[in-house]
């Protein structure tokens, strides 16, 4: 096993009587493109908030690049980039002003922050309205700006909560290429997305959280092998029968099999034509 970028032990978070994240053990190696999946309300965003220091765990430990998050929060935050759920922008700044601000907050000197801001705005195709406030950006533009802000300081681990939501196809292609290049240079990316095709195409490893617990973790191949082995048993034989001979199970099929979300094909609404 290589150097660990993310490691959690018994990570738990409760909100009153509800345990949103329950004893999660995660290990993500440095340089992995890691997908974190789960149905709505499974605990994905809560986990990512805890991993980035935005939410205090009720119990458990988090280590990022060998640093304990609770003891060395500043050291950890210096090394990570975050695009949280719902974004985190100062909407009364222009794109350039916001990126400059974030760069300075992450310790870049004024000149470097300015240079990187200009490069990022150009790369993200956000440089056509230099005087427009973030408040007047479309959702997709805000998403791109949040991504630009998350990488301005050159993080070693990047946390992305639904990064492609609301981003057009052209921008999504640019972003995917950028993320792949970052991974090739050794950056670890921890990503949540509901679009399983994107996760399947980008990620080498995934973990699936369901009702606050990790129910599967490993490379996509390992998960596929596990599901196929299980499907070979009588209980899930239908899954293997559905696919063509020699065809691999998709991540969607694997996911549905693991979280038990398959719907009976015959179920339909009688009044719909």
């Amino acid at each position: 096993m290589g150097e660990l970028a993310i490691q959690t032990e018994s990570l738990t978070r409760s909100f009153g009587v509800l345990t949103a994240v329950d004893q999660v053990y995660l290990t993500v190696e440095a340089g992995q493109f890691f997908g974190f999946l789960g149905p709505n309300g499974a605990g994905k965003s809560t986990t990512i908030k805890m991993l980035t220091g935005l939410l205090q765990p009720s119990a458990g430990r988090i280590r990022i690049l060998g640093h304990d998050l609770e003891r060395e929060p500043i050291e950890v935050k210096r090394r990570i980039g975050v695009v949280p759920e719902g974004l985190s922008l100062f909407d009364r700044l222009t794109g350039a002003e916001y990126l400059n601000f974030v760069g300075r907050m992450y310790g870049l000197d004024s000149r470097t922050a300015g240079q990187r801001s200009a490069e990022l705005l150009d790369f993200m195709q956000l440089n056509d309205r230099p005087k427009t406030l973030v408040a007047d950006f479309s959702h997709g533009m805000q998403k791109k700006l949040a991504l630009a802000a998350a990488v301005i300081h050159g993080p070693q681990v990047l946390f992305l909560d639904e990064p492609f939501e609301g981003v057009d196809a052209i921008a999504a292609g640019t972003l995917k290429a950028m993320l792949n290049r970052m991974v090739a240079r050794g950056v670890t990316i921890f990503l949540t997305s509901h679009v399983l095709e994107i996760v399947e195409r980008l990620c080498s490893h995934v973990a699936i959280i369901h009702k606050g617990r990790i129910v599967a973790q490993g490379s996509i191949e390992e998960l596929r092998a596990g599901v196929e082995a299980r499907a070979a048993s009588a209980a899930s034989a239908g899954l293997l029968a559905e696919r063509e001979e020699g065809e691999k199970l998709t991540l969607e099929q694997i996911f549905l099999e693991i979280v038990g979300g398959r719907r009976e094909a015959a179920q339909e609404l009688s009044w719909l034509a």
Partner: protein
Amino acid sequence: MAGVALHLNIGRQVGLIAGLRWRLFVNSLRTGQAKAELVALIVLGVLAAVIAATIGLALGVGAYLMVQKGRPQLLALLLWGVFVFWNLFPLILGAFAAQLDIRHLLRFPLRFSAYYLLSLAYGLFDPIAVASLLWLVCMAVGLGRANPALLPWAVLLLAAFAAMNLVLNRVIYTWLERLLSQRSTREKFFVVVILLFLLPQFIGVAVERWGKQAAPFVRALEPVTSVLPPGVAGLGLEAAARATPDVTTAASGVLLLVVYAVGFALLLRRRLLNQYRGEELGESEAPERATPQALPAASAAPFALLASFLPGPVTAMLRKEFRYMTRNGIMWINLIIPPVMALFFALTWNSPRKSSSFMARSPELLFPMSVIYGLMVLTPIALNTFAYDGRGVLTLLAAPVRFREVLLGKNLALGLAIFAQALLIWPLLAVLVAPPGAAAVAATFALLLFAMLLNFTVGNVLSLTSPRGFDFGSFRQRQSGVTILVALLIQIVLIAIVGGAYLTHRFLGTLWIAAGIFFGLALATLPVYSAVLDYCSGLADRRRETLTAKLCK
């Protein structure tokens, strides 16, 4: 598809929407707080009804007396009052509160005629319209009692006047809605309305100084006002109230009011038709591709000096705060009001009737008073310092900085703004009254320093323990109860200290002692402020969920 082609008549559609409103109302009462608010609303409603009825009675009696005493030409004044209240009051409310939006009903297969009727119905059942209608009824009763022969004309003229107002009100509202749909316009409009609120404070001074010179200009406006709806209705009533009624003038009045109503109805139709056809009033710009432009050069010059001895994150916060200040209408108002009030104090001091005023007896206190006024306006911002950061607070929580630096940057920005304001007030008073004495200036700046440190010390803790998110361009926003209470306590402490200083000044005849006391207090507060900044770094970490929950809504 079966069942899609359902055709509902207008009455059924309107009925369905009334049912929807009722269901929304019932569902909104599920929480205890909502029920308590309903009770408060009922109490306020009864109070408003009593006030409206009292005004209605006054208008009825006024109309009665005007006809009885043979001065029906004054009836137009009453109608102007109703006209302004009916049409301009909602304009002010529009700046402050989210209005009911019926455009969301357009997703349903609603006919345009039903949509038009609904718009008018919303206008008719508005409390302001109900009160205005009540007042017109009261006037009609008063006129009828004064002269029964006048009643048919009064009913005709006032009904036409009411119909015109109803339609005009909807026209104003729908155009206002379009105007305020853009963020920047909404915020500018809000600033203008707030400034209009300040105007009455100057009316007394202005009338006293320039009242006589302005009278001919006011009289010159008469021909214009007589062709506007209240003037037309007033002239019609005046003509009908004569011993031998001037039927032609009265009938022309009714006709002209109907023409006004039809004209406004056509304007309303045009506006509503645009809405009906799917007009987009979105906040963001159209997603057209523009030519990439060079980024504006960062204006680093004013910050270069500060950046040389402040840590990078503090400078970044300082710069961000200044940018937020210049892009916040409410902040502009807060910055403008104190110099405006200083102007007001100076005008009052210069007033011919000043001899008995407090200011006339203590002119050396004019500068401290004006600055303290500014301080009282601006320091509450420090008690909820993240109010306008919204979701941006997540950037601060995710960044590798201690909140000591964040708060220091914020405090420095506000402190510099307060200091700059005091510097602006100084020449204003120096020109209008007399340059403040050295002792007054020293005492004022020492007090300013102490008051700022005290407010920042307490405010930094409160901002983390009781944060409240505010929207730009919106008025009905309250600090948390704890913040309001603490702000009150701070002001009481400050007033007590300032009062003590004033007494020493009265008895000893010098402000230098007060300056010394304030400076000493500021020096004593400084280490406490620094210690609290450190404490806030840990506090922010512990309170991050509260910050996120309250500011990222």
